[in-house]
């Protein structure tokens, strides 16, 4: 699946997008955050406060307990500040 990062999440991770293949036990958005955070210091820093991170699956906002199976694109970003 494709992951996208925006704003300071993007800056901390150090890339705007990537393709990942998480193991089968990574079932929810929350699991995915935990799995990413364990990768290296950059990801750990980006996801150090998981409750602040917002997520979207296929362009729609989701909560951290949302299932990721079947998702084509998952995005992580800080709370939005548009308008």
């Amino acid at each position, binding site marked *: 699946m494709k992951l996208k990062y925006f704003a300071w999440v993007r800056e901390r991770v150090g890339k705007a997008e990537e393709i990942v293949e998480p193991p089968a036990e990574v079932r929810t958005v929350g699991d995915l955050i935990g799995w990413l955070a364990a990768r290296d210091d950059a990801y750990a820093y980006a996801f150090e406060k998981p409750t602040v991170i917002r997520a979207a699956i296929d362009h729609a906002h989701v909560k951290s307990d949302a299932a990721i199976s079947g998702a084509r694109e998952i995005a992580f970003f800080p709370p939005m*500040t548009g308008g």
Partner: protein
Amino acid sequence: MTVAATIRIQQADFDVAQEIAALSRGRTDVGAVVSFSGICRGSEQGEPIAALTLEHYPEMAEAEIGRHADEALSRWPLQGLTIIHRFGRITPGENIVLVVTASAHRQAAFEAAEFLMDYLKTNAPFWKREESARGTSWIEAQGHDDAAAARWTKS
């Protein structure tokens, strides 16, 4: 009557007057037009800023704004709706966002415009970074914006 919203996500500036006129010119069924223009201020939390840069998530911004436009059209009897949100670098005094609503009645036009602005502030995938003498930093979300958006949730 089916009303289609006009939604534009663009780097270029827009002309508020032209957008208002587009919803009302030559029509005799519109009684009320409300416009909201959000403008880049020259300071944030008392600090002068040189510019804002808006990052966005294009596909999601389109989907998300489209959903909220549809919800506004289903909740209020609107005769026209235009939403424009800019991205990229914007300097103080420049436009950032525009919502224009047209209706036979003023209450609908006001409420729909407020609803859309509250949701754009909290749900549309845009992020503002400010440039000041101290460097650049991401603007933090305001809790009162979430509270403003929450008042539209149907109970």
